[in-house]
C-alpha cells in the first residue's frame, strides 16, 4: 500500500502502521481514511496529502 505525505508539515501516512492514536487501525489504506481524519501533526485535511515519492 502506498504512503502519503502531508504537503503542509511533511508527516508521512504509512498504511501499514495506520494512526492508532486517532483510531485508524494498521492496514488502513489512505483512500479508506474517514473524512474526519486529519494530519496528526498539523491538522491539515486529506486533500493536502499527496503520494510519497
Amino acid at each position, binding site marked *: 500500500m502506498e504512503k502519503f505525505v502531508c504537503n*503542509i508539515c511533511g508527516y508521512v501516512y504509512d498504511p501499514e502502521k495506520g494512526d492508532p492514536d486517532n483510531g485508524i487501525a494498521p492496514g488502513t489504506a489512505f483512500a479508506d481514511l474517514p473524512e474526519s481524519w486529519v494530519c496528526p*501533526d498539523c491538522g491539515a485535511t486529506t486533500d493536502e496529502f499527496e503520494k510519497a515519492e
Partner: protein
Amino acid sequence: MNKVFKAEKISANVWWVGASDWNVRNFHGYLTSRGSTYNAYLIIDEKVTLVDTVKAPFADEMLARIRSVIDPEKIDYIISNHAEPDHSGALPAAVAAIKPEKIFTSVAGAKTLTAYCGDLGYTAVKTGDAVDLGQGKCTFVDTKMLHWPDSMVCYYDRDKVLFSQDAFGMHLAGSYLWADMYDWSVLEQEVRKYFANILNLYSDKVIALLDSLPGLGLDIEVIAPDHGPMWRQELEKIIALYRDCAQQNPRPKALVAYATMWNATKCCAEAFADGVRSKGVEVELADLNVCDRSDIMTKASLSGIIALGAPTMNNQVFPLMADVLNYLKGLRIKNKLGFAFGSCGWSGEGAKQIAAAFEEMKIQQPCPMKQVKYMPTEADLEEFFNTGAALAQELLEKLK
C-alpha cells in the same frame, strides 16, 4: 518624517537592520512583558542581500538602518525565512525601495507571501539549495512547521552565521544585540516562554531537527534569530536549552491555576497548594483573573503537576478556564499529573469539563476530580490538602 536609525555590525559582513518594539505587550495574545525586536539582517557581499524584514509599522526604521550602510537600491536579493507578518509586513515597502533582482523563500513561503503581500515574484528554494553571493553563499534548510509551513533557515558560510528565523529567539527588547550581554536567567525565562507558547506542540520536530544539525556540517559561529538578541558564545548552551524544552521532562513543581467568583475555588486551591508544599515540592498559585494565559502555559511547561480549578457559570466551566484549557490543549502539553477541582452551586460542569479536557490531552489524573457545593467545609479543605500531598508524593516517586 525622515527617521534616523543606524545599523549595527554583527560580523565582518553582516549588519543588524531590524527594529525594536519596546512597548508591545500583547503579541497575538502572548504577553510580551519585555517587548520584542523584529530582526532583519543585511549581508554586504558582491550580491547584497537582506535577510527577512520587520513588522509593517517598522518599515521606515528598517530602511533607515539599511540607508546608514548602503543605498537600498544596491540590494540585489531578499531572503524571506518566515512569511508571518512580523517578518514580512515590511516586505512590500522593502521591495518598493530595493527593487530586488530576486526574493528567495521556501515553496510554502511563496504561497503564504503571495497571500499576505501579493505576488512580488518569489523564487522558491528547498533544503540544500544555495545562492551564490560572490565571496560567500547562503544555504537553505527547510524547517517546515517550526513553526509555520513556510519556515526555513539559512546559513551564510563566509561569516559562519545561521539566520535561524524564529528558532532560538525570544521576545526581548533591550540595549544590547548579543545574548551574552544579558543575565542568563532572563534569557532562559524568555526562551522557555517563547518555546512553550510557540513551539511546544512541535517538540518532536524540534528534537528531530536538533538531531539532524551535526549532519548538516554547518560551522556556526553566530546564531541570528528573528526576535531578541543574537548568540555568539556557548552556542551549545542555547541548543541544550532547546532540547530540554522539547523533551518536556516533568519537574518537581506544581502549578495550581484557578478561576474564582466568590473565593470558594480559591480556598480549595490554597489548601491543595499547602498540601503539595508539605512534601517539599515547589508550588505556584496563579489566579486566572490576573495571570495571562501565556504565563500559565510557561508555568505549566515547567511543572510536573498541573492542578486546574474553576467554578461553574451558566452550566459551563468558568470562561477564563475554558480559554486556558483550549490553549493548553492546542500546545499539546505532556508528561504531567493533572488534578481537576472547583466549586459549584448546582449543575457542576466546571470541574467535570476540566477533567474531560485532561482526559482528551491524555494527562494522567491519579486523584479523582473534586468539586464542592458553594463553599468548601473544613473537611473538604482537609481533603484538598491531603490530595495535594498525595499528588506531590506521586510526582516525587515518578521523578526518582
